[in-house]
């Protein structure tokens, strides 16, 4: 919170924004994530990779504190178990961008963003700034349920950022984006984890991840996982184990064989 203090805090004594202890997630009787022990600190930008159904969305839901049947283990936000957080304080701690927005009522983009605001601090962005940064300024009076998939996805990202939480959990923030907007969102994300903030996003394209993230969590789908700095995880071995196909890298571009 205090911009003067954060620069002097020694890295080792910092409480992680997010910590999991033995987090185990199951779906349809299968263990997808087994005993995940993981720390995410302020300033880090994490991508979660894994094939379809490997449990990426499930992990993000569990980290956000939403109900996940058959879940075991602890999730701590800023050193405190998530179930001990009052619901209002939790909203300042973490925000979740779901893969699919649940639009049933006719709300405008502007209204949707206004409703999503929780924390107002000195470094929080206004709706106008966010909308121009994410190229949705021209949509502000449109109904959120009548946008294209890519537009709605950028509005959802703006909603998540409007909440002002320290940790953003993003379920596939660029899956519907055209190449130009993938770059735009990537550049915006690369600068969104400043100060006391961090984000965790599920994504699929290793080349994009290499440009945007500092760290990667790979889910292998059988319960095993591997977490570390982006250069360690984006390797031929780990990518092959993650996706089940061979990969080669040409000048920082990853190509599946």
């Amino acid at each position: 919170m205090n911009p003067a203090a954060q620069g002097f805090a020694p890295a080792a004594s910092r409480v992680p924004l997010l910590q999991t202890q033995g987090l185990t997630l199951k779906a349809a009787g299968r263990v997808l994530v087994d005993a995940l022990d993981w720390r995410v600190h302020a300033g880090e930008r994490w991508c979660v990779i894994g094939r379809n159904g490997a449990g990426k969305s499930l992990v993000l839901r569990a980290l956000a504190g939403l109900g996940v049947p058959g879940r075991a283990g602890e999730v701590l936000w800023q050193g405190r178990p998530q179930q001990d957080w009052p619901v209002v304080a939790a909203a300042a701690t973490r925000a979740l961008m779901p893969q699919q927005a649940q639009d049933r009522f006719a709300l405008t983009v502007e209204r949707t963003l206004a409703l999503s605001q929780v924390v107002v601090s000195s470094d929080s962005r206004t709706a106008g700034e966010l909308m121009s940064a994410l190229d949705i300024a021209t949509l502000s009076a449109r109904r959120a349920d009548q946008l294209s998939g890519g537009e709605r996805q950028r509005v959802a990202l703006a909603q998540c950022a409007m909440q002002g939480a320290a940790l953003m959990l993003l379920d596939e923030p660029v899956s519907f984006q055209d190449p130009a907007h993938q770059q735009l969102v990537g550049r915006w994300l690369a600068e969104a984890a400043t100060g006391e903030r961090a984000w965790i996003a599920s994504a699929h394209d290793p080349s994009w991840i290499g440009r945007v993230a500092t760290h990667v969590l790979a889910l292998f789908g059988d319960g095993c996982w591997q977490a570390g700095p982006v250069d360690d995880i984006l390797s031929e071995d780990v990518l092959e184990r993650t996706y089940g196909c061979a990969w080669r890298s040409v000048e920082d571009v990853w190509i599946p064989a």
Partner: protein
Amino acid sequence: MRPRDPAILRIALLALATALVAALALGLGSGGWDWALIVSLRAPRVAAAAGVGSLLALAGLALQVLLRNPLADPYVLGHSSGASVGALTALLLGAQLWIGAAAGALVAGLALLWLARPALAAADDASPRLILLGAMLAAVFGAIATLMLALVPDQRLRGAIFWMVGDLSGADASLWNLAGAGLFAAWLWSRGRSVDRLMLGADAAWLLGEPVRRLRLELLVFASLAVGLAVATCGSIGFVGLVVAQGWRLAGVLRTRELALLSLLSGASLLMAADLLARIVVAPLELPVGAVMALIGAPCFIWFLARGVK
């Protein structure tokens, strides 16, 4: 930010129209402008119409958000069917109709609350379960009411059927309806932002720090009380609860606070106007007010829809 002026203007104009309708409803009819007649006969009836119209419109608004279904109406959850069973029981036993109706609505409401506990307790959006539970309760009570109609003595059958489609002619001077509608609207106003967030989805609202379970429970309780009060006063009047909030949404009103005030006013004026017509069109005979309202209102709404979808 857009200016709030259109909203204030809309509400002010509607308040004026509501007052005008009330005045007309008080002044028109057989006997003309007779002060004693107005105070003793018409005023209670107009007050009942206004209160019931508001209650049903607000219940519709609340249930549409609770069930995440813009087509929800106050009767989807089975209260009115429960009230019908109660009223018919009262008729068979020779007791007061409204006591039976109130008891029936209460039983149906409590049954729903009890059955819906798991659906409401889940943090995720369990609305399909809730609406299906309500539909099943409505089916059970509806079937019982139909069976009971076969048992009602012939000379009372006409009264029973009139009551089931909604009938203001026997409505009492109780101010409970008006007070309840005012309270309901005030509560919706005070929770306006939270209810708005609930429109984003139950999960989304919870992530934003809203106490979603309590909020959904409160919505259900307020809507149940409103429907029970309305049905005990004058039977199951249809249309107004489905159409008012939905109409304002289609007209571009998005905020719960604004919707609550507009529903309060237009529910009252709609039912007062419909009751006025029901009284004077074929006077001295009276038409069932619910049928009159739907007969005029539904084509208007269809025209509005057809025009809007260009």
